[in-house]
């Protein structure tokens, strides 16, 4: 049995005697006898630490190692040794929410620096200290818009991550939110297809649009902003923190709320989590910001200090009137993103984005030279692209695994199914060529 409980049997006896109890059983005297679990927990015996490590290693080995071309919000980027070392420091790992700021300046300052960086990438003045993931960020952003406008309809571009939209549907099921999907044309949102003034529908609380979008296409925000203006709605812009190295920020193009999945910045693929919901907001909606916010202030001696602020927005104070229930967030992942982004630096982020775009372009051109492969969307792409194949995408993915590749994700775009392929800075020309040859083989 593991030794995480320090008490010896003598400790138990002595402490029980100190409080006037005769047995361990007496500690649980408040639990009625009829509710007691007879025979203890139905679980195996504990393992020695090295047996635990062996068991976990065996599980890890049961996962196939494949060269990754899958994206869809989770990308196979290199992570700096610096990020792994610093975000793994146990002072951060084993701390709690910074409720006593005098002994939590480390986490607070790191979050303040994270908020600054997210604000810069988003082009907006305020960012919170994280929500769970991109999907949750979307749900929270829509909640802000619904609360700010008093409306209950949202227009969501069909270029939005379908898992995120599913989360939005699931998590708003109790509140009659109308989600209207605006189709794309050639991979770019066709805002002309949005309900017109004569549609006798409620105006939307929010316009949701991603750039680059789920199909990898550049889907400019100014058009979405114009639709938001015409409807007096908020624009929720979904951005990609890596693409930020090249593209204009959502804030400078009119987003009121900008959100992103922060995984590409220093978080391993890790089968889907913990990831990082980045969330930035315009000043106008500051009081509706979900989650924790760190502000800079001073201590009693006038020295710089940091503290969570505008706390009256949060669930522990507002309770049933709170517009968000978030408490535990993704602080450690946010700190990792802060370190990874600092390691990349201004020029490094630009170079990272450029390298991803180069690899994507190279592979896209090569794949389009293969008979039977066509683009699923014609618009310019950045770091990910969707292709129509002459076989079912599931079959291609299954066969490509035999060739050592995770070929991508299945995707549905404008009524057609296909393969969504992402290329990161890790992929060499040799790998791209090998991927292309393998895909040509498996689809023929």
């Amino acid at each position, binding site marked *: 049995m593991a030794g995480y409980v320090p008490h010896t049997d003598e400790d138990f006896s002595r402490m029980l005697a100190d409080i006037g109890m005769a047995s361990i059983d007496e500690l649980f005297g408040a639990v009625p006898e009829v509710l007691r679990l007879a025979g203890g927990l139905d679980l195996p015996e504990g393992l020695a630490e090295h047996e635990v490590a062996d068991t976990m290693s065996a599980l890890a080995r049961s996962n196939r190692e494949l060269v990754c071309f899958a994206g869809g919000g*989770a990308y196979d980027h290199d992570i700096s040794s610096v990020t792994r070392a610093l975000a793994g420091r146990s002072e951060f790992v084993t701390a709690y929410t910074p409720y006593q700021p005098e002994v*939590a300046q480390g986490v607070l300052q790191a979050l303040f620096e994270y908020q600054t960086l997210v604000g810069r990438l988003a082009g907006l003045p305020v960012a919170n200290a994280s929500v769970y993931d991109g999907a949750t960020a979307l749900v929270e952003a829509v909640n802000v818009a619904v609360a700010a406008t008093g409306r209950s309809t949202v227009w969501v571009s069909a270029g939005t991550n379908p898992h995120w939209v599913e989360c939005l549907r699931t998590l708003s099921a109790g509140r009659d939110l109308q989600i209207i999907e605006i189709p794309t044309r050639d991979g770019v949102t066709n805002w002309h297809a949005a309900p017109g003034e004569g549609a006798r529908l409620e105006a939307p609380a929010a316009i949701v649009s991603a750039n680059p979008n789920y199909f990898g296409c550049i889907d400019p925000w100014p058009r979405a902003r114009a639709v938001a203006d015409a409807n007096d709605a908020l624009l929720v812009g979904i951005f990609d923190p890596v693409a930020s190295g090249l593209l204009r920020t959502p804030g400078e193009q009119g987003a009121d709320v900008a959100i992103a999945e922060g995984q590409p910045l220093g978080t391993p693929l890790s089968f889907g989590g913990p990831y990082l919901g980045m969330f930035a907001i315009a000043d106008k909606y500051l009081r509706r910001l979900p989650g924790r916010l760190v502000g800079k202030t001073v201590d009693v001696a006038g020295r710089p200090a940091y*503290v969570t602020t505008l706390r009256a927005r949060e669930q522990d104070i507002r309770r049933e009137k709170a517009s968000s229930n978030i408490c535990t967030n993704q602080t450690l992942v946010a700190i990792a993103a802060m370190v990874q982004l600092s390691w990349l630096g201004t020029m490094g982020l630009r170079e990272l984005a450029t390298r991803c775009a180069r690899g994507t372009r190279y592979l896209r051109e090569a794949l389009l030279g293969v008979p039977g492969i066509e683009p699923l969307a014609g618009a310019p792409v950045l770091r990910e692209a969707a292709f129509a194949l002459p076989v079912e995408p599931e079959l291609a993915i299954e066969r490509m695994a035999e060739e050592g590749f995770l070929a991508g994700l299945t995707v549905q775009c404008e009524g057609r199914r296909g393969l969504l392929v992402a290329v990161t800075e890790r992929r060499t020309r040799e790998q791209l060529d090998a991927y292309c040859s393998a895909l040509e083989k498996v689809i023929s």
Partner: protein
Amino acid sequence: MNPHQDQSPVLKAPGGRAASAPLMGGGTEPAIFEFSVPGRRCATFRATAVPEWSAAELVPPEELRPEPVPVVEVSERDLVGHVTRLSHRQYSVDLGSYPLGSCTMKYNPKVCEEAAALEGLRSVHPGAPAAQAQGWLELFWALSDALCRVTGMQAATLQPAAGAAGELTGLLLMRAWHAQRGDLRHKVLIPDSAHGTNPASVSLAGYQAVSLPSDEHGLVSPEVVARHLDGDVAGIMLTNPNTLGLFEEHIAEIARLVHADGGLLYYDGANLNAILGVTRPGDMGFDIVHLNLHKTFGVPHGGGGPGAGPVAVTEPLAKFLPGPVPTRCEDGSYAWKDPEASIGRVHGWHGNSLALARAWAYILANGAEGLERVSQAAVLNANWLASRLKGTFTTPFDRPPMHEVVVSTKHAPGLAEGTRALDVAKRLLDEGFHSPTVYFPLVVPEALMIEPTETESPETLAALAEALVVVGRQGPAGEGVPTSTPVGRVDEARAARVLLPTWDAVVAAQDR
């Protein structure tokens, strides 16, 4: 009796007291942006032989940002120095005892961290087909199974990323269950001692939160519950033991009443650490349970997250669970399956997988007997500490606590008049201990909510108890306390009045 054993543990050093930190103090750590020098960088990239198209060749001109978005330009050495120094300005469980009530700040075994660092777990894309991710699916299946055994439930989802996410998921399951029966109800009952996330989640699920007053013993009484049952109550959310550290002794009767009225019982697993192997939510009559794996199952809190908030349910609710869920096939392999009436996804992928891996490693290490020992020591520690504080602090409810004890400074027999919970909390920092939770639960004035957890030794506990008594007797603290921390009392009012949420806001304010 072992002759080598020292029989006077009070002479031993308490391993959980952090009074010797820090190494060097007094200075201020600049913001990382103050280390930024144009042209400096850390990043290097692989040689890939991919053609080197320029940015202008890759991005349409109207979309290309002419200048890179400013991040920061620092050397690797400066970056590592800065963040390392920040870490030295941060209290943590690894440094010392962290008796925050309701948060279960136990020591997190290092073997769990090592497990979560395995490349074979970290490098798997969440969209990988099940056949290529059998290790992960097996882990999820086994963890779901174990959590069902611990809670007395029949099926689980691992998707919710935190306790509050689990609450909303569980309430939406409740909603789906009622909707299927064509009986859409509107109210959810919550005791006034509940965590704030409970009523917030209830509102987000489209229900009206109805607050139940605790009785004079700090418990929910069946009579109060019965008075609120009018056929429109979808369910009741309870934490048991509750946030006062007390076991809801009438739970079986409450369950009978709520079920008879057509409602469901929701178990908030925040305090499960008290009852492992003693009783199960399923035995008490609960239908839906969320667990905070970052509390009970050894997942570190990460400065506020990430955690994991799986939800387990009884058989009739299983078909509504978010999908997909892992299943074991007849041939021993694992596959994803969507429950037939699934409410849909509640996470972008499968949940906080690496946190789930840590929890599984923790369960493997402890086993049945180890987990039972966890609750025994947690409850013993809280009771022992409670007995040491009695006579100095007010104990609002005169009954033995479970895993945590709530005391008050108001009308405290051994304290100077006017001593507030905040005074005790801030003075305790100077004694080398993190503060307990203060001013919660809301039903106790000047509350100090203390949860020592099972991983603190009797020596640490003795030192903590002594420190609490000593600082309590010192009376009101004033703004000058604490004195030994990296910064003194922080001006929270100013932070809200002059909002500076980013370095750019700081620079703009200086320019004005």
